[in-house]
């Protein structure tokens, strides 16, 4: 079935994944569980990546920079045609929210596993999205029109009031977004947002929006089929962010009760129906301290944090996406959807929480993922994997599930302790301190918490300097013993020692 607005649904048995990393793995697994053949694409940097090894087929699509590989629409269409893939799943990021790409797929008779191109286009233009959902009765945050020049924006800002946000029309995931607390900071913020948006999206149009303070970021997961059925799968609490990058997500939310869930869910369904939405999508809301909620934006794709919803609803969202894209009806009505238990996700990033969260590049030497009851790890890295500046710094998602929030927090604590990643620095210590913090345990946080009221120095857990010193001394001693058996004792020769260290590892 092919719709005017760029929705094509039909049966397919081979699918191309236009992505990499953990989300490519996630989609591959869903395909294999449904008996769908898979086609991976990879840049020169990703030849040995798990998604290449795990797919049925794999095609090189160019150099490491995404702009020359994962973002080149024509290459992806060509590989799909060459391999005989009748569908493309875009994952998140890259081309997932490019209406042009969705349309190109349909024009080539390839199913785009996502919404119609028209819905992506409307929701991708932040301003048009606001107008559209407002007309459908959805509450929105006050702000300006887009396309104003810098002077016009500075003038409009006084009417909106501070604090406010500069946001890129083409933005998403915190990129091209800047908070402004004082009028004198506005010009710089506009410039920075334009620069970042231009670099990231090739479009420097920005607009202003009132900043809701003490707000929570709560989003509603939607599923819609091509037969006019749209349901919501409860909410996700995503308030723990740093520079608008989500760090910890959970479902359900501490502050959402049955009534609020139903009201937000119904508004979200209305917003989606306003653009004749199909497939999976998410409506992001800001919820203020009085539990008023405002439409923030719609993510017209699968989200990073979808697993927490999967765990509390028992519904495999990626499998549903594939079924809906094949033209099937949803297997659930709204009444079938029940939430059971609690799930929390920690994003494990290659970054140094003790040094301003700077990304950490390098080669991962050792990985041991936590396992056991209630633990799920979605990852695309492995020993030998190189964290490069070309792609984002997420190593994996560590998701825990249990009966109650308390049980899950304790489970997350032990899972974080079990996780071993060597070779790059990670934000595991950040998560460890967070899950121990009083405010996290009692659910007392909003979107500004990580940046304004959280510090790595808060750590009141035990530290083990003496034990670390002992381990280091014993390792050095053991290395020295080996060395002294081989080379005459004398001036320390670093290159030689390194070789010996490796040699020792080899002999074990």
């Amino acid at each position: 079935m092919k719709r005017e607005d760029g929705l094509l649904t039909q049966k397919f048995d081979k699918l191309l994944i236009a992505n990499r990393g953990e989300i490519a793995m996630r989609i591959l697994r869903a395909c294999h569980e449904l008996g769908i053949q898979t086609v991976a694409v990879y840049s020169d940097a990703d030849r040995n990546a798990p998604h290449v090894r795990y797919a049925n087929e794999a095609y090189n699509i160019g150099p490491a920079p995404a702009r020359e590989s994962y973002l080149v629409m024509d290459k992806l269409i060509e590989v799909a045609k060459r391999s005989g893939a009748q569908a493309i799943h875009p994952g998140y990021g890259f081309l997932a929210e490019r209406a042009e790409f969705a349309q190109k797929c349909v024009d080539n008779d390839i199913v785009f596993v996502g919404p119609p191109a028209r819905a992506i286009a409307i929701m991708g233009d932040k301003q048009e999205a606001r107008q559209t959902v407002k007309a459908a009765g959805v509450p929105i945050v006050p702000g300006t029109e887009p396309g104003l020049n810098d002077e016009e924006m500075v003038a409009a800002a006084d009417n909106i009031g501070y604090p406010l946000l500069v946001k890129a029309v083409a933005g998403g995931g915190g990129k091209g977004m800047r908070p402004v607390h004082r009028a004198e900071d506005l010009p710089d913020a506009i410039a920075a947002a334009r620069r970042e948006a231009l670099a990231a999206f090739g479009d420097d149009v920005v607009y202003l929006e009132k900043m809701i303070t003490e707000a929570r970021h709560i989003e509603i997961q939607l599923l819609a089929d091509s037969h006019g059925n749209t349901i919501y799968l409860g909410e996700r609490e995503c308030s723990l962010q740093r520079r608008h990058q989500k760090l910890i997500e959970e479902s359900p939310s501490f502050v959402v009760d049955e009534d609020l869930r139903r009201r937000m869910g119904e508004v979200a369904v209305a917003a989606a129906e306003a653009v004749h939405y199909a497939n999976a999508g998410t409506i992001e809301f800001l919820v203020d301290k009085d539990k008023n909620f405002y439409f923030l934006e719609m993510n017209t794709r699968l989200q990073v944090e979808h697993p927490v919803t999967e765990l509390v609803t028992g519904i495999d969202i990626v499998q549903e996406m594939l079924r809906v894209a094949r033209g099937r009806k949803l297997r659930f009505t709204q009444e079938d959807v029940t939430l059971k238990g609690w799930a929390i996700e920690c994003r494990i990033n290659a970054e140094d929480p003790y040094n301003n969260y700077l990304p950490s590049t390098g080669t991962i030497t050792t990985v041991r993922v936590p396992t056991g009851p209630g633990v799920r790890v979605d990852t695309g890295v492995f020993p030998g994997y190189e964290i490069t500046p070309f792609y984002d710094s997420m190593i994996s998602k560590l998701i825990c599930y249990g009966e109650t929030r308390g049980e899950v927090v304790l489970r997350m604590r032990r899972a974080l302790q079990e996780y071993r990643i060597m070779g790059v620095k990670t934000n595991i210590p950040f998560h460890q301190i967070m899950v121990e913090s009083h405010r996290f345990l009692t659910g007392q946080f909003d979107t500004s918490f990580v940046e304004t009221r959280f510090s790595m120095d808060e750590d009141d857990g035990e530290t083990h300097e003496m034990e670390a010193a002992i381990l280091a001394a014993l390792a050095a001693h053991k290395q020295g013993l080996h060395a002294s058996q081989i080379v005459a004792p004398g001036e320390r020769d670093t290159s030689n020692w390194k070789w010996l260290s490796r040699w020792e590892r080899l002999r074990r």
Partner: protein
Amino acid sequence: MKYYTQVNNQDFEIDIDHEDEITVNGETYTIDFQTLAEAGLTSLLINNRSLEGAVEERGDVWEVLMLGKLYAVKVQDERSYRLAQARGVTTESGGGDVKAPMPGMIIAVPVSVGDVVQKGDKVIILESMKMENELRAPRDGVVVQVRTEPGASVEKDQLLVVISEEKGEIELEVEE
């Protein structure tokens, strides 16, 4: 054999003379230390307490990952320690260097040579991994070198800015 170790500004003198015993700051512990088959992993039983640590030599420190936390431990044997003491080299040397933590492109350099900066001030804005990253002054001091400019591509660990504690130290720092 005696080792002088330093981690998070704490010093530990460690004597290793037997396979099953260790003395730390004068106190003796029973140990059982094993290196495991997974690269870098070690297991220590110390007075029957069990600790698993990933240990890797990286540059001039030993990195120890234990219970999720990363420790950078400086380990010197007696000879290196005495030599270092004699030379008067402190463990703070190099603390004024701002290096690129990853490859990327310089977006802005908000400081110039001669500027007085405070620890935590922005000195470089580096774009990498699709994000603008702020590199900050590692200590109070004076900017004595700026080795890059906006638009430049930089490699990992490339020296970008040097901050001296006092003006008089400039020469010494550069020599090092």
